[in-house]
């Protein structure tokens, strides 16, 4: 029990650390000063401004869509790759792993420009397909490495046993591997989502003319200063997500109740 109390105490401190800047961001969306100056003066002005800014809302929705597609693609590709690479020896695996870290080391600006030059070489215009590919490439390491950490040393005896009992590949995957991997797939997907959702450089170089995403709007604004409507839309997204998590938590209420017993 004492362990649990210490555990919760530590968790709460960490959560405070993680949420501190986000809380400030949310507070600033209700602050009257456009430059985030204190003392705090309550105002809903920036939400009013936001709701009349169709372009910004559209940009946020497009960013969500791009991030969600990226996350799904990364998880599917990453899971497949991790399952497949178990068939290779450690040298080949090391080669795969170094390919995966490429997008982590190379600055995104270089990757973005390279993809733009590739588009030129192919004689194509900037388009959403290439933008998605770019997002997948940079988000992929995060998804695949989380899945890989989970799969590492996962003993294949269970799978062998499953085969021996006559289960086919698909059944084994569905019954044994997938449940085992699903937490990592989810976490990897959320990380990939997060990388894509905040990616400026790749979107900037690859997005079709006249289109925009939330990070493009934010980064283009900093030359002269962005207004707190950026804080407002970020707050709405965060609040909506937290709300959904609360709903999930309530669905699991019983397990939360058990904790206090």
């Amino acid at each position, binding site marked *: 029990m004492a362990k649990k109390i210490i555990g919760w105490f530590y968790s709460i401190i960490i959560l405070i650390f993680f949420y501190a800047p986000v809380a400030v961001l949310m507070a600033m969306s209700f602050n009257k000063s456009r430059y985030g100056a204190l003392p705090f003066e309550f105002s809903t002005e920036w939400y009013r401004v936001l709701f009349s800014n169709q372009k910004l809302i*559209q940009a946020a929705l*497009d960013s969500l869509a791009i991030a969600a597609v990226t996350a799904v693609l990364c998880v599917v590709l990453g899971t497949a790759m991790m399952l497949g690479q178990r068939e290779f020896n450690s040298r080949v695996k090391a080669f795969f792993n170094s390919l995966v870290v490429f997008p982590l080391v190379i600055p995104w600006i270089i990757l973005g420009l390279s993809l733009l030059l590739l588009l030129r070489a192919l004689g194509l215009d900037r388009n959403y397909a290439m933008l998605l590919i770019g997002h997948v490439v940079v988000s992929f390491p995060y998804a695949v490495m989380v899945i890989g950490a989970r799969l590492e040393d996962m003993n294949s005896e269970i799978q062998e046993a499953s085969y021996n009992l006559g289960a086919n590949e698909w059944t084994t995957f569905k019954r044994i591997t997938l449940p085992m991997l699903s937490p990592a797939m989810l976490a990897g997907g959320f990380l990939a989502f997060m990388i894509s959702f905040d990616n400026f450089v790749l979107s900037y170089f690859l997005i079709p*003319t*006249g289109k925009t995403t939330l990070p493009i*709007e934010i980064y*283009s604004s900093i030359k002269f200063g962005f207004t707190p409507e950026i804080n407002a839309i970020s707050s709405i997204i965060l609040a909506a997500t937290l709300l959904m998590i609360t709903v999930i938590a309530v669905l699991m209420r019983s397990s939360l109740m058990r904790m206090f017993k």
Partner: protein
Amino acid sequence: MKRKILNCAAVGLLLVSLLFGTAACGSSGQQPSAGGNGSTQGSADKPTLVVVNWKDYGSDNPEAVQKFESENNCKIVHEYMASEEELLTKLRTGGVGKLDVVLPNPQILPTAIKEGLLEELDTSKLSNYPNVYDKFKKLPESSMGGKTYAVPWVWGSTGIAYNTKLIKEDINSVNVLWDQKYKGFIGFRDDFNDAVMTAAIALGQDPNNPSDLNAIKNKLKEQKPLNKTYWKTGDEWSKFFANEQITVGLMWSGQSASMKKAGQPIKYVVPKEGAIGWVDYWAVVKNAPHKDLAVKFVDYMISEGFQKDWVSKGGPAPVNKVVADSLSEDFKKDAGITEDILNRLYFISYHDEEVKKAWNELWQEVKAE
């Protein structure tokens, strides 16, 4: 079982945001000119003019856009640039033949002209061109071989701004940036051009053609410990200033004016030693899809109506003489745009790649010390 519910819910979360997003994309697809990957889709009824500029920099003001759109039965789409050099990248990597109007500055204009990225302009087609100050027309970067490729739009300076609530003395010298009294409250700009040129002004060297880079480097190193921080973007400056982290520093005339309008206790001065002056130009891209419309747009940008409207909203100084003459002396003094100031400015001229590289490396060394 619990885990299963949770996993389903989390997957649901991702899918909901996915649906949400695609539905939104779908709805936007019904607007003309959106959707697909072509900038010219929907142009059957209305031509779409693609303009590249800084965000929130005059030409994308919704009212201004709407006025031009309805007068010319067209649609304006803005693309934003991240830096001048990056605009050059945009033009080199597929901008030619796709973009219509861009906003290059003297740092990249000669390169862009030489590489054939810009269209030659027939200034007789610009009805408002005769009203533009000769001083700006004569700056060498906008033309080559007697042909004009760019039209001056607005100008301003990079001088000293300070907090009048916290600093009571009248500041009029660039040496304030080297004043021990303000140690820990100064905000110098993180930009190699501004840094080198400002140090040159303080040392009495020609800012566009400094004679002693070593002295400049030492001067900048001497200045470094006095700063609170270096600021890079206007956004940083305004936040540091509003929170009183910075009380005095290098700043643009235009942003000082708009911050003052927003109620900040800020005063802008062009120091007696002089300051860096800059001009923004419009240019039409080579093989622009809508060349005639592009020229009309440039003409609109330097028209009395547009220039007057923007300067009254806190924009930078107009190049249109008629507009400038109509402004009150007090207003011009506040905004740092009087004739007297104009004559004290050193307008940034073109520097070739070697010079830029040397200046950039010098600045990196100062910062890394």
